[in-house]
């Protein structure tokens, strides 16, 4: 067998081992943080980014903190047991990083009042249960502005995972951004019905490009749609991570999930006793939503993107500023008002002008 393969394989195995040794050892520490992931950390998407946030805790807090994780926890009967085992094994701060963990997290939180729980993307809170999520739609608005400037065919292809509020909100925000600079843009949406199947995501991207799309946007986890964009010579946006390596000529920017700061701050809060139950919905200003370097675009578009990003961070632009009508023509957000968080949280309608039907 090839020598460098052997070397790399051994290195990979050793790295896993080294990582593991670092985690099991700590005992009477201030913070022992546990993470529950819905996918494998090797998915290069959602769970991968959360794990990078976990590593940030170890890097920043050093010996004062230890972390552990369980990956690929099914969103079903198993979640409750895993969360409880985390609580029982001395973890005092537990992050459950998928919507489907909401009810089990709430249940276990009740039984362990001294343990702090943090649930991502849900809406149930308690004295020892916080929620947190990121306003990825802000990043998608910036992406929309860029797309509006860069498209020649005026057709954007959008690969969606499932028609849930998070994704619908992203499509709406993207289109509001695009229309702010180019009212002729249209979007075609294909639902892959999976968060993660590189082949299928790529095929969806190909179908959209064949139908005239020259910008690819994705709300699925793998770099496949962007890779397809690169191969077919169109442009696109990365998801969750900076994916420039997969598409050096195609990636305009990527909407990066960055949980590092939040995780470190919450761990510190437990250490100094200031942890309180709260609802965090961090946007560009908090650093939770990051935009990867703007590439493959002319300077004026880059300047516009940077300006939009800065204005969203400062609050000058709210992507969902009224008046906003839905497809039926009903006024959802009044002139002079912004969408409320509650409206954004449960968004299940397309804004007027989107030529697609939302599956009900």
């Amino acid at each position: 067998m090839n020598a460098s393969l052997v070397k790399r394989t051994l290195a990979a195995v050793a790295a896993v081992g080294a990582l593991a040794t670092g985690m099991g050892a700590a005992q009477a520490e201030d913070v022992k943080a546990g993470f529950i992931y819905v996918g494998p950390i090797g998915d290069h998407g959602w769970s991968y980014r959360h794990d990078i946030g976990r590593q940030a805790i170890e890097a920043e807090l050093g010996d004062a903190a230890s972390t552990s994780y369980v990956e690929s926890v099914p969103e079903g009967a198993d979640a409750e047991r895993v969360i409880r085992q985390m609580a029982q094994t001395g973890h005092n701060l537990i992050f459950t990083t998928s919507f489907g963990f909401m009810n089990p997290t709430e249940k276990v939180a009740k039984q362990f009042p001294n343990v702090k729980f943090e649930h991502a993307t849900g809406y149930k809170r308690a004295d020892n249960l916080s929620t947190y999520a990121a306003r990825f739609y802000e990043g998608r608005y910036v992406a929309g502005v860029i797309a509006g400037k860069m498209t020649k065919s005026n057709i954007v292809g959008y690969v969606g995972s499932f028609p849930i509020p998070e994704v619908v909100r992203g499509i709406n925000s993207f289109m509001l951004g695009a229309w702010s600079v180019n009212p002729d843009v249209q979007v075609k949406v294909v639902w892959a019905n999976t968060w993660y199947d590189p082949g299928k995501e790529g095929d969806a991207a190909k179908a959209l490009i064949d139908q005239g799309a020259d910008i690819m946007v994705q709300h699925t986890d793998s770099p496949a749609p962007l890779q397809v964009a690169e191969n077919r010579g169109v442009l696109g946006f990365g998801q969750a991570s900076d994916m420039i390596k997969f598409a050096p000529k195609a990636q305009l920017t990527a909407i990066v999930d960055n949980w590092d700061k939040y995780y470190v701050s919450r761990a510190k809060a437990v250490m100094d006793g200031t942890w309180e139950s709260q609802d965090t919905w961090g946007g560009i200003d908090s650093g939770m939503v990051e935009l990867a370097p703007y590439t493959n675009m002319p300077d004026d578009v880059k300047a516009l993107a940077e300006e939009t990003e800065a204005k969203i961070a400062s609050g000058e632009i709210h992507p969902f500023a009224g008046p906003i009508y839905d497809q039926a023509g009903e006024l959802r957000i009044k002139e002079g008002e912004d969408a409320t968080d509650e409206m954004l949280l449960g968004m299940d309608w397309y804004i007027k002008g989107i030529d697609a039907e939302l599956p009900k």
Partner: protein
Amino acid sequence: MEWIVPFILTVITASTPLLLAASGELITEKSGVLNLGVEGMMLVGAIAGFAVTASSGSASLGILAAVAAGTLMSLIFAFLTLTLMANQVATGLALTIFGVGFSALVGSGFVGFAIDPLPALSIPGISAIPIIGPILFGQDFLVYLSIAAVIGIAWFLSKSRAGLILKAVGDSHHSAHAIGYSVIKIRYLATMFGGAMAGLGGAYLSLSYTPMWAENMTAGRGWIALALVVFATWRPGRLVAGAYMFGLISVMQLHAQGAGIHVPSQFMSMLPYLATVIVLVIISSDRAKIRLNAPACIGQAFRAAQ
């Protein structure tokens, strides 16, 4: 109509991994062995192919590594089921569990690596001919290999002496043994061929279809490949038809969504599975023909009488 060519190209790429893995499994099953571990063998093939290509820079070495890795996986299966006579169905499933874990472990160092996709064939002049140029003369090596493999298998099963022996072993291992053929040895070889082709199917995913490594990137294609062998009623020609039909409908439903069809996307996603069932029902109605093709000894352990 300019979308026609890229559409066909998309169908070809979606179908090729299924065809590669399924054609290997077809030979395995024809010898009377049912290996449900295709998904696991594909994954190990995918990571081996990717890891070697990424480390050495040579896709040819990567493809060879995928073949070797798939074969090694099938050898585990063969040893357990043929030598130790463990149950084939359960061992195949265990092989998939093992393969998912093993590939994830080896692959943990390769997440986020990018490589160049397999180069496509390019014959100056010919590959540029409209429509047939890109379709017939613009694919990568593995696509041609998948077609060549099926043609070879069809010839092997219908025309060659070795193919007749293989079928005899699958249809009646006791008779084959009585005539003097080494049932176990032949089944070992057939199982290894299945592993090698599954490895290639995996390599096609990680080197060409979506050139990357991510855990579980086969996303169930090994299972579809297994179903396609049954769908094809163990005939190579129908295997091509089945794999391409599955690919075609999978891609068509994505196109239909993009074109704005007003049907919930979940129902659209069901179409390839439903179509496979319906077509199978239609072609299965002729009982006699099916029975002729199905290897009678499939899944049964063989032990030569002492």
